[in-house]
């Protein structure tokens, strides 16, 4: 009896256990097709096809990748100090990080926008936003250097920025945090509805120099502005901004700002706003905000403080700002290449609404309004709506375009990129991302003429994609080939910082203009030393200026005596090289700031305040030549009040020892 009973029991259990697992669907493993390696392989010595500028998020910088290889080419320091090359530490660049709050060493960099001409990237400048201490920056793409940073008054959480109009007439900056605006800012937080305002700044970009200036600001109801994009073609005169928290919550926004069925896309006729400003309809108000400019000639940055801002109040000056209802806390606000379709992505919505610019114009003309919000007319949803993409996925965030009538939307919650047709709003394809995609980028994907070909998904969660590196992981990005009907994932690569938005453009729009080195004769830095014979050390009270040159493989001078404890020593290092990719570095023992990297033909200054007597080594930190390790020297520091004479020199035959 035992045996049949036992086998019966086992048989029963087996049957049960086999019946169940068959019901659980298999996970998609994201298998890469065999041709993927070929598509992303850029042979040694060959160049990538596209530059990909990627925001650094919490590292405050901009990183530059090559596509399709996913290779990291450069990190451009923008809003955070960068001890690696001295940005924010050197005397020349310190001023770049000045704000009305003093020098701020860090920021949160979210969005990038390439300058455009006729709606197409022209490869001249890259604009970047700082989220935390509201600023916008302009980066020169010939030198990959941050040239200008403008602070924004009446702003907090500069998130809706720095998107530009078709000819880079303006870049914009909208506030994620509404704050009290005006003379009295010491108000109770719960007086939000009464006292708090959002603002949207229009920043004029000089078409020749790229110089930024705050043209005017819109004073708006206290909501959270999230993202924005300019119109194109027929909608050229308009700018569109998404906003949430129309509930005007000031606490626990997670719940309290998610109650209304619809928030808004705000449409602004900036041409009309320009007219109002021209006709002096704006209010000139007091404000204090700083403007930092890096002068290429003097190779140094300076800070000026601005004191005025022109404000336009759309509740009083009518007919240029409108709200369009958009479901559930819209995030992305993207305009298709034709400029006709405006895509709002309600991050909590189960659909994607697409608005029609023609219908919006008609609705405004026919006054198809649903009352107003804070004095600004609200256009009827149905009157502005072109249609809705049904069941696109969960958590739609951002949309880019391929120029062939298709839109690609990132889905945070369902971790996928969804391709859909703009005209019939039907979903064509969906591919998983790894994991929880935030922004996505197609080369030229937010412009009038997208270059298409690739799509990059920038993910917020990495987990098991790469070898583990402890609790803190790199962020993951995936590259998709979008040249076919179906998207194909061809590469997975780690990124630095935490990328948000990114921009990409064909490499030769930039590479052909790239500066290789600075001509020494054009060096306008007042502390430059254009030849070893001119090297010197000058004492001015307790300031010691060291005019020092660097060339393979020595400094002139490399022996300095007569420095005293308590002196402020300024090493003005001029790199005399006139060849591509021969930077020199400079470091001194005990320097409390950073090292500096000096590009060929450039002068950089490192300040050093020795606190103890002794002999301090200096050396080159960038491996410059076979005798790089010999490129060194000494600085003797004597006690305060010492009479050690100031001497400096080298044992070079041709320069001889120069004595003061």
């Amino acid at each position, binding site marked *: 009896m035992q045996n049949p009973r036992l086998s019966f029991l086992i048989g029963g259990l087996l049957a049960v256990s086999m019946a169940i697992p068959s019901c659980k669907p298999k*996970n998609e493993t994201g298998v890469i097709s065999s041709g993927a390696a070929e598509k992303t392989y850029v042979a040694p010595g060959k160049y990538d096809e596209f530059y990909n500028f990627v925001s650094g998020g919490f590292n405050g910088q901009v990183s530059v990748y090559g596509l399709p290889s996913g290779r990291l080419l450069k990190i451009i320091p923008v809003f955070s100090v960068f001890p690696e090359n001295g940005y924010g530490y050197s005397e020349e660049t310190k001023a770049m990080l000045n704000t009305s709050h003093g020098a701020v060493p860090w920021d949160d960099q979210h969005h990038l926008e390439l300058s455009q001409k006729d709606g197409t990237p022209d490869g001249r400048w890259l604009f970047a936003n700082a989220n935390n201490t509201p600023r916008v920056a302009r980066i020169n793409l010939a030198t990959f250097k941050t040239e200008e940073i403008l602070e924004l008054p009446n702003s907090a959480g500069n998130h809706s920025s720095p998107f530009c109009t078709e000819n880079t007439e303006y870049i914009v900056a909208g506030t994620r945090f509404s704050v009290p605006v005006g003379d009295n800012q010491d108000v109770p937080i719960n007086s939000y509805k009464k006292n708090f305002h959002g603002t949207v700044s229009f920043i004029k970009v000089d078409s020749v120099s790229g110089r930024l200036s705050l043209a005017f600001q819109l004073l708006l109801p206290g909501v959270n502005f999230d993202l924005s994009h300019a119109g194109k073609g027929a909608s050229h005169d308009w700018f569109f901004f998404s906003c949430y928290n129309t509930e005007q919550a000031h606490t626990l926004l997670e719940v309290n700002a998610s109650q209304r069925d619809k928030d808004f896309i705000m449409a602004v006729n900036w041409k009309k706003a320009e007219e109002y400003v021209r006709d002096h309809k704006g209010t000139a108000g007091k404000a204090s905000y700083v403007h930092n400019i890096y002068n290429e000639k003097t190779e140094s940055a300076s800070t000026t403080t601005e004191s005025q801002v022109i404000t336009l109040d759309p509740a009083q000056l009518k007919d240029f700002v409108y709200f369009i209802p958009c479901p559930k806390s819209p995030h992305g606000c993207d305009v298709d290449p034709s400029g006709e379709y405006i895509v709002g992505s309600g991050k909590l919505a189960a659909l994607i609404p697409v608005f029609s610019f023609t219908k919006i114009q008609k609705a405004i003309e026919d006054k198809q309004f649903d009352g107003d919000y804070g004095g600004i007319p609200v256009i009827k949803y149905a009157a502005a709506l072109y249609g809705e993409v049904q069941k696109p996925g969960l958590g739609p965030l951002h949309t880019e375009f391929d120029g062939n009538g298709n839109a690609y939307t990132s889905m945070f919650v369902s971790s996928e990129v969804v391709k859909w047709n703009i005209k019939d709003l039907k979903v064509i394809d969906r591919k998983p991302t790894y994991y929880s995609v935030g922004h996505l980028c197609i080369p030229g994907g937010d412009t009038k003429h997208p270059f298409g070909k690739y799509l990059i998904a920038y993910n917020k969660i990495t*987990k098991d994609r790469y070898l583990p590196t402890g609790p803190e992981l790199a962020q993951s990005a995936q590259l998709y080939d979008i040249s076919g009907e179906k998207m194909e994932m061809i590469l997975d690569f780690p990124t630095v910082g935490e990328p948000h938005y990114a921009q990409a453009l064909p490499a030769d729009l930039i590479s052909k203009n790239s500066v290789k080195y600075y001509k020494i004769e054009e060096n306008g830095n007042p502390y430059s030393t254009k030849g070893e014979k001119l090297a010197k050390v000058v004492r001015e009270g307790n300031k010691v200026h060291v005019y020092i040159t660097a060339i393979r493989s020595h400094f002139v001078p490399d022996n300095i005596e007569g420095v005293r404890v308590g002196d402020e020593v300024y090493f003005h290092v001029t790199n005399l090289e006139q060849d591509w990719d021969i930077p020199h570095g400079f470091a001194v023992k005990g320097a409390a700031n950073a090292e500096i990297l000096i590009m060929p033909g450039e002068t950089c200054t490192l300040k050093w305040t020795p606190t103890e007597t002794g002999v301090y080594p200096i050396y080159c930190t960038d491996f410059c030549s076979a005798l790089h390790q010999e490129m060194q020297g000494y600085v003797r520091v004597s006690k305060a009040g010492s009479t050690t004479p100031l001497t400096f020199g080298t044992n070079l035959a041709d320069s001889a020892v120069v004595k003061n």
Partner: protein
Amino acid sequence: MQRRLSSSYRGVILLLSLAMIAVLYLPIWKIELSAPQYPEGLNLQIYANRIGGDVDVVNGLNHYIGMHTLHTRDFVEFVVLPYIIGGFAVLGLLVALVNRRVVFYAWVTLFVLIAFTSMIDFYRWEYNYGHNLDPEAPIQVPGMAYQPPLLGYKQLLNFGAYSIPDWGGWIFVGVGVVLAALVVLDLRLRRRAGGVVPGVAAVCVLLSLQGCTAGPEPIRYGQDICAFCKMGFTDKRYGGELCTKKGKVYKYDDLHCLQEALKAGSPGKGDVAGIYFVDFAGGPWVRAEQAYLLRSSELHTPMGSDIAAFADSVSFRMNQGKFNGQLLTWKDLYR
């Protein structure tokens, strides 16, 4: 008639009691959750006296959709269940001691009662957990409930939930199977006749596991024909499917045909596991109970029902404006 149990029976009963004591310490049930951003998966484990596994992570996620957080102390079950299971084990020892067939059968009945009540209670708890949503939750999908499956797999937004017995549960099931076998063998011995297939118990268990019936299948346009009117599928905007408990799928090109087929009793009402409609807006299948139905003579459906189905109120309203129809629910059409 024999009123006592054989010694081998008493031995097995003793073993079963010990097995039930093990159940006290092992996880009885588990709900595995998987989502794209959780490649490693999340686990909820239900023990006799507590909830274990990634409870905190799950609680953290659930507040987005307004589900209540899970805390062991909120469940009277976790106080009572150890006594029930422990008591059952102790009673088993008594059954072996008392050595009466009547008592044994009483014990078996008790087991069946415990099993059923537990499952009913579990279902009731899952229902409340999935339906009692905070009306102020940030993410609200109209018509969406998040009740985990009692057994088997179910997709809840971006999470797949897979509910199965864990070690303790399997032991429990095993105990049940052995008890069934003991009963069957005992009855057969008593009748001194065959006729009862020993596999019955296993088959019963298998049948009870049919929680995972087949869902709707895609309609192959140009190949499939309507199961009622026998015509080919012409319009991708209309139609529906009946899925039976046995996993068979009947496809219809119009709601008219689907209704008529149900009326005709082919398949019979009792056999139907699920009714699904084609989403007029082109989305995935819409469950009949959740569908927004639009009746309008301007729709011109293939077989004249003039009814289109929608998954959500927004697409329904958009098309209602276009076609001037009226809103119906499946309940209105079919009682």
